[in-house]
């Protein structure tokens, strides 16, 4: 047996078991009641304050759970570039996935927060030990940024819990907090909402707290980048929709916070989009593109309509799959050619047709071409901005949406240009020696592509789970 095979096999087995269990939940889920938690289980771990290990899935968490399971299988299938230390390599991937999974199914605020942090140290170790380029600097940056962001978030959550519980028994139960917290005075809700927005914002790489993301993803080993950019970063968005928006409606609707968010998300879409155009290396380009697309999700959330929420959640899924796919392929390009500098690459599709084809499809998905899940998601986000106003009246949200539409053009520019430089044109010397993906290494790519196509052609697959949740959330306002 090859060295590291036991670690690889057990990691793969764990990821597959996870996928099978997810399938069981998907099949048993009652889509008619997608707004309420199902498959619930709870165990009290502390009487006072009341902490419970409570889990359950509703429509939104179901989508995120499917995303996590799919990306985990794909990430585990990616072999390490350097031999040795496989146990640490695979256990880190699984820990990051476990953290995301735990956060998405927790219905207790404490474990919701705690699980997310499970990924902190494995990410730090993986980028530092197995990354490339300025990996050590990037590892420090992502760890300190996310550490600080999550502490701000913690302060916000502590304020939320203590204010909402008042003199009664302190509770972290999301269902109870959803009853209690909206009753708080707007003057209490607004600062707490702002703190949560900033805390989550750092984790999501909201402009201007985005600078950790691109270098970290660029230098991280493929599975870490896939899981982090694809799954874990969605935690912040999930948290906004799960905690901040429903529990602090007065904060969400405060005019000044809303305007601030609109400006910042335009920073994500337009400014980071332009930064992405200027990138010379494929991995940094993908990192920036991942930051940029967060702006659309924010836009969907900011719209406050059922359609916008649906689009945001759909985009969290579609973007998670497409960015994980792009990072997996990008790592293959590096492995085959030894470089990611786009100027030194060219004509790779001729020598690695499968790689070329799948990268092209991932590119189309990322731009938002019809047929891929991203298109369905983005169209809902854009229409969500206009869902509640006649077209001849433009508010700040509508103007932002119109500006954000230009992001589609920007992303088409940088993604298509990157594809042309790397895969088409005169074959570069490094590319002529490159072989194509073969055998098992095609598996994660096919898996993720299938997910994108399936959700692109049959958006109802996801929408049946998302819609009841989004409608219930929009009805709160």
């Amino acid at each position, binding site marked *: 047996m090859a060295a590291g095979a036991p670690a690889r096999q057990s990691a793969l087995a764990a990821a597959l078991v996870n996928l099978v269990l997810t399938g069981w939940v998907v099949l048993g889920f009652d889509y008619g009641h997608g707004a309420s938690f199902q498959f619930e289980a709870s165990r009290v771990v502390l009487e006072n304050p009341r902490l419970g290990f409570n889990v359950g899935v509703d429509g939104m968490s179901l989508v995120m759970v499917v995303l996590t399971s799919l990306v985990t299988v794909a990430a585990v299938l990616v072999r390490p570039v350097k031999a040795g230390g496989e146990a640490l390599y695979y256990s880190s991937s699984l820990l990051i996935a476990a953290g995301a999974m735990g956060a998405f199914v927790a219905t207790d605020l404490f474990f919701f927060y705690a699980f997310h*942090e499970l990924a902190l140290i494995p990410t730090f170790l993986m980028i530092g030990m197995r990354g490339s380029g300025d990996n*050590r600097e990037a590892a420090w940056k992502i760890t300190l940024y996310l550490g600080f962001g999550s*502490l701000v978030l913690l302060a916000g959550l502590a304020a939320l819990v203590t204010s909402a519980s008042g003199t009664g028994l302190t509770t972290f139960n999301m269902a109870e907090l959803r009853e209690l917290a909206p009753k708080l005075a707007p003057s209490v809700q607004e600062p707490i909402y702002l703190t949560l927005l900033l805390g989550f914002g750092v984790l999501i790489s909201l402009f201007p707290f985005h600078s950790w993301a691109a270098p970290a993803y660029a230098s991280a080993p493929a599975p870490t980048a896939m899981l982090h950019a694809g799954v874990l970063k969605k935690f912040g968005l999930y948290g906004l929709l799960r905690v901040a928006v429903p529990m602090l409606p007065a904060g969400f609707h405060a005019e000044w916070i809303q305007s601030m968010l609109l400006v910042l998300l335009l920073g994500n879409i337009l400014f980071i989009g332009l930064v992405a155009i200027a990138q010379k290396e494929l991995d940094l380009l993908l990192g920036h593109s991942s930051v940029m697309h967060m702006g659309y999700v924010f836009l969907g959330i900011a719209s406050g309509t059922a359609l916008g929420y649906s689009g945001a959640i759909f985009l969290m899924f579609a973007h998670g799959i497409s960015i994980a796919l792009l990072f997996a392929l990008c790592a293959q390009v590096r492995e085959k050619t030894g470089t990611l500098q786009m100027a030194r690459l060219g004509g790779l599709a001729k020598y690695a047709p499968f790689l070329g084809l799948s990268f092209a499809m991932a590119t189309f998905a990322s731009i938002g071409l019809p047929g891929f899940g991203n298109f369905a998601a983005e169209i809902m986000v854009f229409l969500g901005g206009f869902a509640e106003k006649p077209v001849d009246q433009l508010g700040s949200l509508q103007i932002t949406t119109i500006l954000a539409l230009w992001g589609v053009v920007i992303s088409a520019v940088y993604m298509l240009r990157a594809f042309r430089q790397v895969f088409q044109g005169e074959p570069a010397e490094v590319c002529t020696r490159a072989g194509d993906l073969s055998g098992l290494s095609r598996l994660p790519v096919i898996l993720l592509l299938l997910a994108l196509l399936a959700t692109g052609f049959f958006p109802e697959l996801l929408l049946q789970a998302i819609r009841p949740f989004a409608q219930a959330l929009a009805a709160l306002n």
Partner: protein
Amino acid sequence: MPAYYLEVAVVLLGLVLLMLEAFSSASDKRFVGHLALGGLGAVFLALFVVNPTPGTSPFWQFYTADSLALTYKGIALVCTMLVLILGLDYIPVLEKYTARIGGRSAWGEFFCLPVFICAGLMWMASAIDLTSIFVSLELVTIAFYIMVTFMRRNVGSLEAGVKYLILGALSTGFLVYGFTWLYGITGQTSLMGIADKLDSGTVARAPALFSFALILVALAFKVGAVPLHFWIPDVYQGAPTPITAFLSVGSKAAGFIVATRLLAPYLGADSLSPTATAILLSLACATLLVGNFAAIPQTNFKRLLAYSSISHAGFLVLALASGASGGFGLLPSQIVAFYMAAYLCMTLLAFAVLVVVSRVTGSDELSAFNGLHQRSPLLAFALTVAMASLAGVPLTVGFLGKFFVFGAAAAHQLWLPLGFAVVGAATGFYYYLKVLRNMYWNPPASSPATAIPLAPLTKWAMVLLIAATLVFGVYPQPLLHFLR
């Protein structure tokens, strides 16, 4: 069974061990350590059958056996046992820096004196009278004077001893002076009487606050809070590593139980409370700032842990100062006690790894940990858990401690101190993860990496501490149940 039987048993155990050590002809004194461990273990078990309700005789006016006292007695016993285990691992270093007397090893007392310190710590946990507080505090401090300088042929140990002695004596002076003022204005030595008197409003405010300040100076020295933190890095670095661990956990825990009890009358009195709280809060903020920021440039692991100890004192003082009702349904005293128990697990785990690594590499520097995960995955994992917990990564017990402190601060709208705590904790991520960088990113100094052997006792102690750190981080109910 009355609680004070436990202290009597511990003192008797110490005396017996001293005699055995002095008159035994064995050349290897390891058995003293093993006996001490067994004895303390038995006392620890007896702790669970103690009747916690205090009686009514005059004796109970200066001795209490409430749940807080019993918790701190447990902390003292567990801490001492772990220090003894660390000490058994540390024998090669002791051997090097102590002269053999007539062919017999001269480190036997290294395993007797901690037992007396343990008795002092346990007494302190129960002391509710100025005199009993002072006497038990001195029992601990004087024994520590000896332990810090135990390595007689090591200049660093001697230097640390002198620093500790001089500053310790100074702080004792402050404490006694504060006590005299307190006695002078209230006419009481019992804390219950003092609390009544201060709350009645008949006591002049200025002298009361003066005594508060004097006592705070002495307590700040004990727990390592700003402005009396200067001794910590030097003494921690010079003292034998097990004793550093003892100072860092045992001594700090005792300092905090005394602080909890001594400061309560001031914080409970309407006329004094605002000023006293403001002073404590500014102390907490300063401690958080100094401890965390000074830890950043450290390259020596013992000094790093020293500054870490200061920063944790900041969190603990913040919990004490955050208001009488605490937060998240927990009283400040309960938060502090929980935090101390958490701090015990993670800090002793870190010190246990340090003792083994520094014995093998002969160095306390961070660079001694380079490539540790290749040399011993267990040690690297243990230290990862300890650092994660100290940094406050969730699902470890250290996070819960910080979480409760954050909750207490948020419940009383102390946004500025909460901001300091957030910045301090974020800084902690950097310097605690620096250790992980050395262990995992950096290659080992010697190639190929040589494995590090572990004594079974040390190994099991580490496994137990790892388990405690992780299990209590997810399921804290047993610990808090004990506190109620």
